[in-house]
């Protein structure tokens, strides 16, 4: 069997592979250098590539992504870290108004090949300002590619694609997955953007999941397997490009769809997926489309409270049972 590595270590591995391949790739962010990042996802990079290619910044989120953008427009491929995805709000102008629009509004004169990496999601008791799942914010902006891996090999393979594409990418690393282990990525591993994975094949119901909701969906599917139900779990991997072909193909087989997302229900990415299926897949459906998503509340601190708010395996199991009984 292949070596196991953590999702956390896969991040540094994935970045290092690209930095070795292409001298134009550089990293910047708060405490990413000697400290190796607050989540230890950049350990070893400064030692290997030096302080000019792996650079600590002041606490200036706008400067971080703004400087990355200016560098990307002029021949560099920056990988900028925004420590917690909640802080994307501090530089949202760059993600919403500058980076994604530059190419289009100049009539294609300029490209902006950069990656903004950020630690996303809850479940760790970090409270309302350090726990949000905000992949839906990025989805809402035309011109951003949106990636959110669920396992270490995908981290490496999707980072490779994200860094190599000439389009701007927001790369969501899930805090709840950092400690999880999986197979290491083979040399040269590249996962194309926009290809969902079938994380578990099945015939009876489709579960669409992303990042940390993939293991949740798998656990729920396992639980149902005991009662003879085979759920198919689709790991979207990316929100943009969005692999709706994979979702629709699965629903064609199962006729039932459950979407599991950590962002809040209202405005969540599942609404986009559901609405496409309710349009293009209307005739495939034998049951309502259901979404298990976060409640419309800020993330509370205490575990017992946070569990009430974000998706959990029991909630997924209950929703599956409901839909199967329809």
């Amino acid at each position, binding site marked *: 069997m292949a070596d196991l590595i953590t999702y956390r270590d896969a991040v540094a591995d994935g970045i290092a592979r690209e930095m070795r391949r292409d001298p134009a790739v550089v990293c910047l962010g708060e405490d990413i250098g000697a400290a190796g990042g607050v989540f230890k996802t950049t350990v070893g990079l400064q030692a290997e590539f030096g302080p000019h290619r792996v650079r600590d910044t002041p606490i200036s989120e706008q400067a971080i992504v703004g400087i990355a953008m200016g560098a990307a427009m002029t021949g560099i491929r920056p990988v900028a870290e925004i420590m917690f995805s909640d802080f994307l709000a501090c530089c949202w102008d760059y993600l919403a108004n500058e980076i994604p629009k530059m190419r289009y509004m100049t009539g294609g004169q300029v490209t902006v090949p950069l990656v903004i990496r950020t630690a996303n999601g809850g479940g760790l008791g970090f409270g309302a300002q350090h726990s949000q799942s905000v992949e839906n914010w990025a989805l809402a902006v035309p011109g951003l590619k949106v990636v959110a891996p669920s396992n270490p090999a995908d981290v490496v393979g999707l980072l490779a694609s994200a860094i190599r594409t000439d389009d701007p990418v927001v790369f969501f690393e899930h805090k709840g997955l950092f400690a999880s282990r999986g197979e290491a990525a083979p040399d040269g591993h590249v996962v194309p953007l926009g290809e969902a994975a079938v994380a578990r094949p099945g015939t009876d119901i489709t579960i669409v999941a992303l990042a940390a909701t993939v293991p949740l969906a798998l656990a729920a599917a396992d639980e149902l397997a005991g009662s003879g139900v085979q759920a198919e779990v689709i790991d979207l991997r990316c929100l943009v490009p969005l692999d709706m072909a994979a979702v629709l193909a699965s629903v064609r087989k199962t006729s039932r769809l459950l979407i599991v997302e950590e962002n809040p229900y*209202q405005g969540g990415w599942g609404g986009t997926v559901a609405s496409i299926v309710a349009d293009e897949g209307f005739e495939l459906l034998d049951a309502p489309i259901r979404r298990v998503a976060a409640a419309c509340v800020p993330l509370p601190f205490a575990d017992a409270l946070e569990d009430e708010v974000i998706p959990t395996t029991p909630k997924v199991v209950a929703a599956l049972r409901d839909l199967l009984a329809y």
Partner: protein
Amino acid sequence: MTATVDAPRLLELYELMSVIRGTEKAAHDAFLAGLVKGTTHLAAGHEAVAVGASAALRPDDYVFATYRGHHHAMARGAAPAECLAELMSKATGVCQAKGGSMHLTKASAGMLGSYAIVGAHLPLAAGAAWSALLRGTDQVAVAFFGDGATNIGAFHEALNLSAVWALPVLFICENNLYMEYTPISSVTAVEHPAADRAAAYRLPAEVIDGNDVVVVADAVGRAADRARAGGGPTVLEAQTYRHFGHSRTDPATYRPAEEVQRWLARDPLDVASRRLSELGVPDQEITAAAARAAGVVADAVAAAKSADGADPAQALTDVWADGGHQWRT
């Protein structure tokens, strides 16, 4: 400088600082024992800033703090027990365990929150100061923030607007030399990241000893007086040092041993107790204050530990002013 704090008052402040120190140590122990989820940013070493400032402020003034804000919550009147309970996810937490360590808030004591996005609360303090002007009171508002916060946009916008509107707001930087693990000097070109920026807004500034509670009380008192009299904002940069690492279990190995020693030798508790001795307060009174503080902390730990856990039903309350969280019919 003439201390405006007399001996009996200083003994009170010493005791309060001791309570805070003890509570921070208890929080650290609780974290190591697995009783605290998420993260904590302990303020041990920073006590004189919070206690000195609070001593110079009025109960109806407003205070805004950062994720490293336990000391400000307690200095303004939050009980150690309700703070520890918050950290331990208990129903008796000062925010019902919905906020956690980074968001301690005691609104009834004018402690209007701890904010975990660096720099975000500086405009809020300006807003509370504007509110005081609009309502015709002479309250002042204070924002406490770290050295690292001086490089974020909100700092600039808050200082400029506060200066132009001559708001009764104090910007107090707790310069502890480091952001998380990176020295502020490596990312700032001026020596005093807060005070050296004040001139850009035509604001008065002072660099002060943040480990001397009397110095802090005096400086804050002067700045608050000026603000109440319509003289506008002041920037204070209090030099201090954190005794623990940045957060959680950070051993802070990035700090030179010599530097740590130098600062530990200037422990704000020691500075205050030396002052007490100089003022003629007998040793046993100082020891007695410390003992009382230890008792308060021990009781607080016991109370927090024995309290009920947070009520899951609370997860869906208080999004809206009507108490609920409904967003649709």
